[in-house]
């Protein structure tokens, strides 16, 4: 029994990104989507929190203003949020770009303020990833975890808890399950 999808829930771009009409993406010019990425409804992406360069080189034109860079085959579930982290560095407050690699799955209602997320990462539901956290490749973050700011999560780990701690390792076989191509194909449009 398949429910008839509402007309055009997803807008599909040339590069195969499927963006829901009900997502709330701010500052779209500063967001890079790698391709074949799915953004579900009510996802907030703050592309407006740009890096404010210190005026050390005023003549140099700011060509590359990227706030959020996302890789291929990523999946952002309903209600999650991607926010570039900001901090006070040498007396100057600035936001820093959020870089996400390929095949990253983010569960519903999670809030990501990390600096860097590696490839094949599976983030559960209602997860809070603190500012400037660095998540390496092939990591699974279980539901409801709170990753504290500045934490570095090594590759192949399973992380859970508040504050999040490494509770296990990704088994050899599980690695294939983190590929999101099938998930991408499953996202339908009427």
């Amino acid at each position: 029994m398949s429910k008839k999808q509402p007309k055009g829930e997803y807008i599909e771009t040339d590069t195969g990104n499927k963006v829901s009409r009900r997502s709330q993406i701010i500052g779209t010019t500063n967001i890079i989507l790698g391709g074949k990425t799915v953004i579900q409804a009510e996802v907030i992406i703050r592309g407006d929190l740009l890096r404010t360069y210190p005026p050390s080189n005023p003549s140099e034109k700011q060509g590359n203003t990227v706030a959020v860079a996302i890789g291929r085959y990523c999946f952002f579930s309903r209600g999650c949020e991607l926010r570039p982290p900001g901090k006070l560095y040498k007396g100057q407050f600035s936001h820093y770009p959020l870089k996400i690699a390929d095949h990253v799955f983010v569960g519903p209602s999670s809030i990501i303020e990390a600096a860097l997320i590696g490839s094949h990462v599976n983030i559960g539901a209602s997860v809070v990833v603190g500012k400037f956290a660095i998540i390496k490749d092939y990591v699974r973050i279980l539901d409801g975890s709170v990753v504290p700011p500045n934490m570095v999560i090594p590759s192949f780990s399973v992380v859970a808890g508040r504050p999040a701690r490494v509770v296990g390792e990704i088994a050899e076989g599980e690695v294939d399950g983190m590929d999101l191509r099938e998930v991408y194909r499953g996202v339908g449009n009427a």
Partner: protein
Amino acid sequence: MSSKRASTMPAPPKPPTSLASSLIIAEHASLTGTHLITLGPNTVVHPRARFNSAHAPITVGSNCIICERSLIGFQSDAAANERKGAVIENGVVIEVGAVVEARTVGEGTVVEVQAKIGKGAVLGKHCKIGPLCEIAEGEVIPDFTVVYGNGMRRLDSSGVEDLKLKMVARQIEVLKKLIPSNLAKFQ
């Protein structure tokens, strides 16, 4: 879920507001309710922040940062001693998705991501409520308390409150340039 269509329901009530001129309020912030909402100078309200004054007025001080998806305001009727509604003092940072129904949020307090502050709670100055933490209704949190993990508390005796307030001020300077303000929409 039905597809998006032009809204046929009447728009939610637009509350009386008193907005300072140096306030930065994003266009997609939402102010609803019937009581007065006061937002102080130099405060930044991110898009998708929600203020609901249906049951009691809301007062926000200066130099505050209210992030996305946060929900400020009483969700059910105020008791007799809570007629003043929700008061958020100066220098407070309310992070993404936090639900603040507190009667008072003291100066310099940080309410982290998705924390829930129950109705009528009183938060002291320079507190920090960690992510996903919950404060019960009517609870009183003393000054300088840090609430974290699974209900654990400790007192913050590092003495850096002034530096934190300065940090918030710096953050606001930067946010002022990044978020276009739309005061007229809410006045």
